[in-house]
């Protein structure tokens, strides 16, 4: 039984590590700020999620597991806020995303219609 849990937890730990590396590769390969965020979010969610699941399996039904689950909850609540803040700050700084498709019709939520959208759409 202990061996099965051990094997399972190592599968989770290795998978988590692999997703962290994949997220990092994504961070490097993607063309612009907004696309890079998508690479980073793989590390945030799957990487951290699998590693913490693996660690919970290692720790068993203890206080340590409860703390790990709280940490996971904290990551799940805070990382989208940080990602959103970063994306919004980039947009406000005037960085236009490199787009293959623009479905917004030049309108961004909260902005005046059509402000400064012309040069990057449909590139």
């Amino acid at each position, binding site marked *: 039984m202990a061996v099965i849990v051990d094997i399972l937890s190592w599968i989770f730990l290795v998978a988590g590590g692999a997703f962290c590396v994949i997220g990092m590769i994504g961070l490097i390969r993607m063309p612009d700020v*907004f696309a890079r965020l998508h690479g980073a*979010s793989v590390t945030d*969610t799957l990487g951290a999620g699998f590693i913490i699941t693996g660690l919970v399996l290692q720790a068993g039904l203890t206080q340590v597991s409860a703390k790990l689950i*709280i940490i996971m909850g904290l990551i799940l609540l805070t990382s989208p806020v940080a990602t959103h803040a970063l994306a919004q700050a980039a947009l406000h700084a005037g960085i236009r995303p490199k787009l293959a498709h623009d479905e917004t019709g030049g309108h961004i939520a909260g902005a005046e219609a059509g402000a400064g959208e012309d040069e990057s759409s449909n590139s």
Partner: protein
Amino acid sequence: MLYFASAVAVTYAFWLVLSGHFTPTLMIIGAVSSVAVVALASRMAVIDREGHPIYLLVRATWYWPWLIWQIIKSGLDVSRIILSPSLPISPTLINVKASQKTVVGVVTYANSITLTPGTVSVEVEDDEITVHAITRDGAMDLAGGDMDRKVTRFEGGAPA
């Protein structure tokens, strides 16, 4: 008052989990400090329906597992895109409607979008969210409104 009591209960449970001390003196000190913390927080007027949305706890039992499943699915999709040599991305910017009635609902929706790999909410205004998606398919999935309806049901409104 109900929110005060439940905030104290949650804070105290949090303290117990983090400390792991079960001697009477320390448990009383913990109880006193959780009451003090919540008292300070309610002077800041953050202990209310919006700041302490405990009523969502029951519905979270089906929403969170569903969200985690979505995260795993789209996480695998994004990983496949990252690892494929041709990097088949088609970055798309799209506006989606948020049909939630409460602020907590819209924030939950925007955060769920960002949490799901492949889509990031870039800007939120009232009931409209501008989303950057890594593929056009991801954007179209979101525009289909499945997640929107789930979040609306999560916050307690009628499914749109």
